[in-house]
């Protein structure tokens, strides 16, 4: 048996000071790691809060791209992608998709004609259980070059300071290359007529382990029909959802998944910079949208379209956005799933 020394020792202070120091330093290190001592750090919490409108976020909904509608369909790989990536999703065959058409707005009740950027989320599953998730938008380039600039854009747009946007643009001149598209009247009248672009660069890893920097786009089979925002507004606030529902009910809708391969030196870390138009492209298969389902109790509702959920054969590149998006989407997901009561699954009296 272990025995303590028989005679009581005199009280010594240093062991207590030492213990307090060890515990204190560990606690401070933990607090620093958690970001509590660095208010300047751009955290997922700040980024997601920056997306919210002045009245606060719509509880129970995605913190951005809040308005949307689910679909199910397939991705039919033609086998061409296998030259660049060993991902099972590129092996010739058909794989199920759970997807979501959406508008880039934090307001789930936004009018279609008020939202310039349209998006598409997809989750493709292969029989071995691997998933490829992607959230794309119809813009040809992203408005800014890095996540901090995106946060600065959110801050500037929400600011009451009349010079805020001017100052933002002065610091981020790349925003000007986005504006011509954003301000153009070339809107389409359907989710089915839009291209959807990854914008972010990823790496395809082939069988030999070689990496290829790529971006991808879904190119619609439907012929785009231009409509001005004013004319779109006349068709009703939820026209896009009604239109895609009717269109798909009448027949499946198709997109080609086209991969663009970067040349050495192309800007892979900056989605604000387009790659030259002559870059090699490969059509790797066809996405077919077979069935539209309401979001409220639909299959896409509980899916986080985190663009870093990737199969083997696809990885993130030096583009800083996928990591930032993943961190922010996770935060948004945790919030909205905890607010289920504010967005009940079966519509009872609430806005349909």
């Amino acid at each position, binding site marked *: *048996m*272990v025995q303590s020394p028989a005679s009581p020792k005199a009280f010594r202070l240093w062991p207590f000071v030492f*213990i307090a120091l060890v515990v204190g330093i560990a*606690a401070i290190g933990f607090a620093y*790691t958690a970001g509590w001592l660095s208010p300047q750090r751009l955290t997922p919490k700040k980024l997601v809060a920056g997306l919210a409108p002045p009245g606060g976020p719509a509880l129970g909904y995605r913190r951005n791209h809040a308005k949307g509608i689910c679909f199910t369909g397939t991705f039919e790989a033609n086998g061409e992608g296998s030259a660049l990536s060993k991902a099972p999703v590129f092996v010739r065959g058909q794989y199920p998709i759970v997807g979501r058409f959406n508008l880039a707005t934090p307001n789930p009740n936004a009018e279609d004609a008020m939202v310039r950027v349209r998006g598409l989320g997809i989750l493709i599953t292969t029989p071995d259980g691997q998933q490829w998730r992607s959230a794309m938008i119809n813009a040809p380039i992203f408005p800014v070059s890095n996540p901090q600039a995106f946060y600065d854009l959110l801050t500037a747009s929400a600011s009451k300071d009349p010079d805020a946007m001017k100052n933002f643009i002065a610091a981020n001149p790349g925003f000007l290359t986005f504006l011509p598209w954003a301000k153009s009247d070339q809107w389409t009248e359907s989710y089915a007529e839009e291209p959807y672009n990854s914008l972010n660069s990823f790496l395809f890893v082939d069988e030999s382990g070689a990496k290829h920097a790529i971006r991808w786009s879904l190119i619609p089979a439907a012929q785009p029909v231009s409509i001005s925002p004013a004319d779109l507004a006349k068709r009703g606030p939820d026209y896009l959802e009604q239109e895609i529902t009717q269109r798909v009910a009448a027949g499946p809708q198709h997109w080609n998944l086209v991969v663009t391969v970067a040349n050495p030196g192309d800007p892979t870390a900056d989605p604000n910079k387009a790659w030259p138009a002559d870059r090699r492209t490969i059509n790797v298969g066809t996405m077919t949208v077979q069935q539209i389902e309401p979001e409220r109790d639909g299959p896409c509702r509980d899916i986080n379209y985190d663009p870093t959920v990737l199969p083997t054969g696809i990885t993130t590149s030096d583009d800083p956005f996928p990591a930032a998006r993943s961190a922010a989407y996770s935060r948004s*997901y945790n919030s909205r799933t905890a607010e289920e009561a504010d967005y009940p699954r079966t519509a009872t009296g609430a806005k349909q």
Partner: protein
Amino acid sequence: MTTTRTRFTAPQRLLHWLMAICILSMLFIGVGMVSTITTRYLTLVQIHKPLGIAILVLALIRLTLRIIYGAPSLPADLPEPIKLAAISSQYIFYVLMIAMPLIGWAMLSAAAYPVVLFGSVHLPSILPVSPSLHTLLWRAHHYLAFAFFAFILMHVAAILFHKLVRNDGVFEAMAPVLTQDQRERIDRLE
């Protein structure tokens, strides 16, 4: 279960220190990853999942060894409340070491995330997709992580107290190596 042994067996001590490193790293990785949007986020998440499963496996092995070999008895003159605290803290640690990875795994399952360990190696989903279960598990994972860190700080403070103030052999029971004098002292006690 207790024995008259004065030290934990070598495999138990090895597991203790290995897990100490894993768990502390895990807690720092956890709070670090949820507070950054840099590319470090992805690296930390990629470490977090397999490390969590490694901790689960090690904890189960350790629990088995504990059942087989037991633990050295505490000093006879240790006041009852402290003895109770010491014993209950051991149970709490076992519960946390096993529950935290399971909660994390279940939480990912409830959110429809694939539980990828590395490459194409992934674990099956252990819960149906459910926002309410996800919320419950996410909160549990979050708050228990802070409780876990607080328990570790108390554990460190307590063991330093045993060594520096009481010098009663409790630290030596789990010490990775012994100094010459500790060895002589333990020889005398045995």
